[in-house]
């Protein structure tokens, strides 16, 4: 059957902000869906609150609503747009939940909108634990023993049946939020309560533990004619017990015989049919007992998932695109395979390489959190690597993570000479515990265990990891010991040595790792390799193991005989991507890379993308002309440059990742286009930066550089507390802190950063209550055009990535803005910026201070582009490739009449025990945008989009520090006038009552029960305002902030946030928030 013609207009729901468990894979899937459906001639309406996505670019849908992804907003859009169909399966759990809620409310029936992709019943059958279990019983497929509980009493009853260890899974949550493994009653009670709270339906599933079983996933697709195909099988390296998002995973399945694999395949077909997912992709997870092969099904996602994105990148089969086409009636055998051109989508990809995905964590941002890996997902990103063997792909994946690992560095032995020594008892104990307790570092300890002489069986018993994986690591370690024997005789005339070098490369050893083992430099190894012609070749990812010709240059490196890169002699530009997502570097940079590729392709260049993040749009094979799925290390990038010989390489779009390589690449003769690495260094190097500031006569907070505590003390005394301290060259505010007194300064210098002459610490005057401003600008060396000026809502001192901000500024005087413009232009010209530049200013008492200059794409580029309608990254790419702004017709700053608010989204709910106070260290994972003509409305939208439940009535709890007491008065009065009531802790209540503002007093936690946290837990409180100062008060109020996270109550912890939040609530009460597509905000050209 060809596509449906009874449908004309389709509404697609996006996934909203990036959060743990739901990252840019849904931009990838949503973008593919938008493209595919537009290509088919449908009118596409899109809802997504995330401005950093490609899918929300105004070209990707006909009507783009950057509005909160909530049932209410979705209903309004449906009422306004009257789409024929709603496609909810490409926007993750958020889209699915929102669609279910709207479907259940009767809105779809009312407006005659059809759910396509998956109907309501199948969604419920897959998502509701009881229904799912029932369905599996119908088709005689085992599920782990389990029971449901909705309250503590039920939970107690359930556990009596199941026993320990038990797995707790809250229903309808993202990335297993609130889930975990309980080994005893105490843990169980705590987790059960947390889980019931975390579930929107107040429901948990308690399951028989199959910890230690092998875990598999299959990606399944089905069409309306009931054709079903398996796209990819994935085997988890970590045994059951670690969330699949946190596991190292490998495709295809490695240790299953065909007979066993076919059991999984048969089960998957039965499951998708029984659940009734009509079209599109689903993901099914299985556990297999390694002792006897017994199989249980763990869960099914009736939608495109994170694993679908991985499976798409791993096989070359574009699951999301095909899923979108199937949803409008196409059959699999009516869709062509883009890669082979000749064959159809109705087949099962077969691959002739091994894919390894490794998760990327950021526990260093949340030191109070438990870093043990459990069934609750904690990773914030992932890297994928392709190799001809597991060994090669595994070692490539480790260096793709960009955590300064280039292979199996030892965690125990200081240097390679020690690898052979006996370990101490203490080290043995450490090893055993590291093998037993899954953590992000376990991979490296596995290698140490092998070095220390543990047997494969022993390691398997301790870790539950399949011996096959362990034996492969053992092979790597064995090769390492052979390599070490050559340390003093790196004889390039010795054929054995040459063979060994090639074998080492085939095992995935990086030059850097070899250099370390041999005590030479990475350059030495590269030179040696090149002299000996031990060079990588590039093979194609083609869905079919070379059975058919591949027309898409989607490539990976390996050390084999034949190279399939077939570089062209066109004019070409290479873009280096951002690698795995992490806090501080995420989808915003991928957005820039993708725009760079689009823009340069439009100008006739051949575009080459290098990246290793499977979640992204940039690693889609049709985003650029050529895709190299490779680690972003110097070695790997240089080899690609060697093959491709691009005319220019763009390093300023992928965040810190490529930027870190810039100087070395340039040294190696790589033609870097755009702002010179020297200018980048001038902005990043503290001393050179200061010289720049002085030269331009700009103002900077007073500062100094300290290499030890006494130096820091002197500087701090001189410039006065509070001071901001941070290690030089930091990313995302890593280890940055505001210090109010000398004691804390001492601790910081000693424990936090271990300052030394090689690792100096920067000490800056902290500008209290200053307003922070971000500017993005374009420059071509002659002209400078301001992209956007953003005023932060939270005061300076909160990391810019964590602050909300508005464009245009909402309260800055015109002369200040003019001064900011002037300084921006001067800096851009002085640094000879070609392309993009971001500057952070602080405004205090009428003075403009320069905080930071980044001559590169910044996190705010997509937001500014969406807010102004000017695609900054596209323009900048053309400028870097040689055009000037005048040629591109880019003049003047666009200052919209409407207000755009960007708000950050945080992962606190995933990290029990972590405080939610904001500071100079970035903690947010994603962002949303609220857009409207009125600040209050726009702000309210940004909050709703970020998942903050702004109340319309109820009781507000207020506890603020003394210096905020006066400021809290006005918002409080306004809210009371709007019908809210107030409870406050003693100090705040006394002050408010003195000022004639009625408030009820509630105990602080330390004052005895019932106290404010009890009030929060009992559901009395609808909103919390809490500002604190000083360690003691922070500790006191910690339980308040944690409980609002768990109970999902709106809260603000900064005075400026409180004011904005108040405006938002009042705006919401004044009028119902209206929805409007981006296309209607932009002036008609």
């Amino acid at each position, binding site marked *: 059957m060809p596509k449906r013609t009874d449908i004309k207009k389709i509404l697609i729901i996006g996934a909203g902000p990036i959060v743990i468990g739901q990252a840019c894979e849904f931009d990838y899937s949503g973008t593919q869906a938008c493209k595919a459906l537009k290509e088919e001639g449908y009118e596409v309406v899109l809802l997504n609150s995330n401005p950093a996505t490609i899918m929300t670019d105004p070209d990707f849908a006909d009507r783009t609503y950057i509005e909160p992804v909530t049932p209410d907003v979705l209903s309004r859009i449906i009422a306004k747009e009257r789409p024929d169909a709603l496609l909810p399966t490409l926007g993750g759990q958020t889209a699915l939940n929102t669609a279910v809620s709207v479907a259940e409310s009767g809105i779809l029936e009312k407006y005659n909108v059809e759910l396509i992709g998956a109907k309501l019943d199948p969604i419920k059958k897959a998502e509701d634990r009881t229904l799912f279990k029932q369905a599996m019983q119908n088709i005689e497929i085992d599920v782990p023993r389990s029971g449901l509980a909705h309250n503590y009493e039920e939970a107690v009853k359930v556990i009596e049946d199941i026993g320990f260890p038990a797995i707790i899974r809250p229903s309808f949550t993202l990335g297993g939020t609130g889930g975990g493994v309980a080994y005893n009653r105490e843990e169980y009670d705590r987790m059960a309560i947390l889980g019931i709270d975390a579930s929107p339906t107040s429901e948990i599933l308690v399951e028989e533990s199959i910890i230690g079983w092998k875990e598999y996933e299959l990606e399944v697709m089905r069409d309306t004619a009931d054709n079903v195909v398996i796209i990819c099988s994935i085997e988890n390296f970590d045994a059951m017990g670690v969330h699949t998002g946190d596991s190292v995973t490998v495709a295809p399945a490695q240790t299953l015989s065909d007979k066993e694999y*076919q059991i999984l395949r048969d089960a998957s077909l039965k499951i998708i049919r029984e659940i009734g997912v009509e079209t599109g992709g689903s993901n099914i997870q299985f556990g297999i007992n390694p002792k006897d092969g017994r199989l249980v099904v763990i869960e099914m996602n009736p939608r495109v998932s994170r694993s679908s994105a991985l499976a798409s990148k791993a096989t070359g089969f574009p699951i999301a695109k095909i899923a979108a086409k199937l949803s409008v009636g196409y059959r699999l055998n009516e869709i062509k395979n883009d890669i082979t051109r000749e064959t159809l989508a109705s087949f099962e990809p077969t691959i*002739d390489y091994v894919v390894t995905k490794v998760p990327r964590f950021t526990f260093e941002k949340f030191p109070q959190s438990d870093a043990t890996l459990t069934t609750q997902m904690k990773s914030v990103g992932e890297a994928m690597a392709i190799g001809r063997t597991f060994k090669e792909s595994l070692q490539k994946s480790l260096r793709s993570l960009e955590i300064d690992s280039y292979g199996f560095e030892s965690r125990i032995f200081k240097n390679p000479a020690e690898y052979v020594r006996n370990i101490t008892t203490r080290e043995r104990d450490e090893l055993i515990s590291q093998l037993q307790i899954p953590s992000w570092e376990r991979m490296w300890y596995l290698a140490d265990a092998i070095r220390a002489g543990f047997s494969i069986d022993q390691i398997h018993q301790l870790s539950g990891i*399949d011996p096959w994986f362990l034996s492969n690591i053992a092979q790597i370690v064995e090769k390492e010991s052979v390599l070490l024997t050559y340390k003093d005789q790196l004889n390039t005339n010795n054929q054995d040595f040459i063979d060994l070098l090639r074998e080492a490369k085939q095992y995935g050893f990086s030059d850097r790792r070899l250099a370390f083992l041999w005590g030479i430099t990475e350059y030495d190894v590269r030179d040696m390799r090149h002299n000996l012609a031990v060079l990588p070749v590039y093979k194609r990812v083609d869905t079919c193991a070379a059975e058919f010709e591949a027309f898409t240059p989607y490539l990976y490196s390996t050390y084999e005989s034949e190279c399939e890169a077939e570089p062209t002699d066109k004019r070409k530009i290479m873009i280096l991507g951002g690698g795995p997502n992490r806090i501080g570097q995420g989808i915003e940079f991928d957005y820039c890379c993708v725009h760079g590729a689009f823009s340069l392709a439009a100008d006739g260049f051949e575009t080459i993308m290098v990246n290793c993040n499977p979640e992204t749009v940039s690693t889609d094979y049709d985003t650029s002309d050529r895709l190299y799925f490779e680690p972003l290390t110097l070695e790997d990038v240089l080899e690609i440059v060697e093959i491709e010989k691009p005319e220019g390489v763009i390093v300023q779009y992928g965040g810190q990742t490529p930027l870190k390589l810039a100087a070395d690449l340039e040294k190696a003769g790589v033609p870097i286009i755009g702002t010179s690495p020297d200018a980048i260094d001038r902005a990043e190097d503290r001393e050179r930066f200061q010289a720049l500031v002085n030269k331009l006569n700009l103002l900077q907070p007073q500062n100094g550089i300290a290499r030890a505590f006494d130096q820091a003390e002197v500087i701090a005394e001189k410039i006065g507390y509070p001071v901001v301290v941070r290690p030089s060259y930091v990313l995302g505010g890593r280890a940055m802190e505001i210090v109010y007194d000398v004691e804390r300064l001492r601790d910081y210098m000693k424990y936090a950063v271990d300052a030394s002459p090689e690792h100096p610490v920067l000490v800056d005057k902290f500008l209290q209550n200053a307003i922070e401003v971000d500017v993005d600008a374009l420059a071509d060396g002659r002209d400078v055009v301001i992209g956007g000026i953003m005023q932060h809502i939270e005061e300076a001192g909160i990391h810019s990535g964590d602050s909300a901000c508005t464009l245009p500024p909402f309260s800055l005087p015109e002369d200040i803005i003019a001064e900011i413009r002037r300084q921006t232009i001067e800096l851009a010209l002085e640094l000879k910026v070609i392309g993009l530049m971001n500057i952070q200013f602080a405004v205090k008492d009428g003075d403009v201070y320069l905080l930071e200059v980044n001559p590169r794409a910044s996190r705010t580029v997509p937001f500014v582009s969406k807010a102004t309608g000017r695609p900054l990254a596209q323009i900048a790419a053309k400028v870097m490739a040689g055009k000037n702004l005048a040629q591109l017709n880019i003049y003047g700053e666009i200052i919209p009449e409407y207000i755009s608010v960007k708000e950050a989204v945080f992962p606190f709910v995933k990290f029990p025990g972590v405080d939610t106070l904001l500071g100079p260290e970035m903690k947010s994972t994603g962002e949303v945008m609220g857009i409207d003509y009125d600040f209050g409305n726009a702000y309210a939208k940004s909050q709703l989009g970020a998942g903050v439940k702004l109340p319309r009535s109820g009781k507000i709890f207020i506890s603020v520090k003394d210096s905020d007491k006066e400021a809290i008065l006005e918002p409080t009065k306004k809210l009371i006038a709007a019908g809210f009531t107030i409870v406050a802790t003693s100090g705040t209540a006394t002050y408010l009552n003195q000022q004639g503002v009625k408030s009820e007093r509630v105990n602080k936690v330390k004052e005895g029960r019932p106290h404010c946290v009890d009030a929060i837990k009992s559901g009395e409180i609808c909103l919390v305002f809490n500002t604190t100062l000083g360690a003691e008060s922070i500790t006191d109020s910690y339980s308040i902030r944690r409980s609002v996270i768990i109970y999902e109550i709106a809260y603000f912890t900064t005075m400026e946030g409180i004011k904005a939040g108040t405006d938002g609530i009042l705006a919401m009460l004044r009028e119902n928030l209206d929805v409007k597509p981006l296309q209607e905000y932009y002036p008609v050209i």
Partner: protein
Amino acid sequence: MKAVLALADGKYFVGKALGSVGEVTGEVVFNTSMAGYQEILTDPSYHGEIVTMTYPQIGNYGINPEDVESNRPFLSGFVVKEACPFPSNFRSEMSLDAYLKENNIVSIEGIDTRALVRHIRTVGAQTGIISSTDIDPDSLIEKARKAPSIVGRDLVREVTCSEPYQPTEGVWKLGEGYVDCEQTHSSYKVIAYDFGIKRNILRNLATLGCNVTVVPAATTAEEVLNMNPDGVFLSNGPGDPEPLHYAQVNIKKLLGKVPVFGICLGHQLLSIALGGQTYKLKFGHRGGNQPVLDYQRQQVEITSQNHGFAVDEESLGNDIKVTHINLNDNTVEGIQLLSAPAFSVQYHPEASPGPHDAQYLFERFIDLMKKHKKGVKNA
């Protein structure tokens, strides 16, 4: 130990010896299944072939006593990127290398198998040689050139059984293995011609209640009819169907007298018996992901395939309906005789290795026998 794979056209690859030390020639082909190597090794249809696995890591789950399609490996040589020396699976009893050694299969590992596959895809399957005793490429290329081609040869003779036998093994079940299906009553009597039959065909028939007698390839139609079967099955097997005149003649005689079902070589032989022709494909279909459209159900099934020859659609008479086609290259995948109860498929509904999508065909055969039985009774 060094080993070399050389092709008749002069291309060669240097790798490491795997399995048995020695020298072997055969037609070099590739299989794209990512698992199921043990079934492939023991599939008699691979007789005369040097099989290259496109998946680079082979042997991961070892060798077990269950996953066999015959009593021994039949292929000439085996080519892999990396053979796993440390298999991991609860059923594994030995490594791939040990098994190949035990069965004297000369094999090679450590070569760029993807380059080899791309070469075969481009120039076509051709004769090649693996050797660990002679590693001079020029000498090997010469030997490959002199080695006989599989075209026009009767390879069936070399793999068929010598005496009839009655297997009772049913299909494999996890935890139970092959369930014995000895038929005691009311079952269909099926005579299966062994042109190189895979056991899983027999297991499927037995599980569905057939009482199967396997007979040598040269058994005459008269002998078969004397056994009074409810149906005749034409098995898969190696090589070119063209020279197998004896089989074609026998099949012709059986048609109309008893329901006939053929798989792979059996399908090609049925087509020839019906006046059709076969031709050699450039590099064949070997793998577990081949999409086949069943015209009758208008559904796509993912099939297991292993054939180097195909039936020419143009050559088929009006009496024959093409029931299935391959969606990759539109070649004939299944036919049905309109005037008598006979049908066949080019692919392998018994899977093993591969997906089970086409198992319904065995039921079709049963239905056909049921109908025919009734018809005979009523007449």
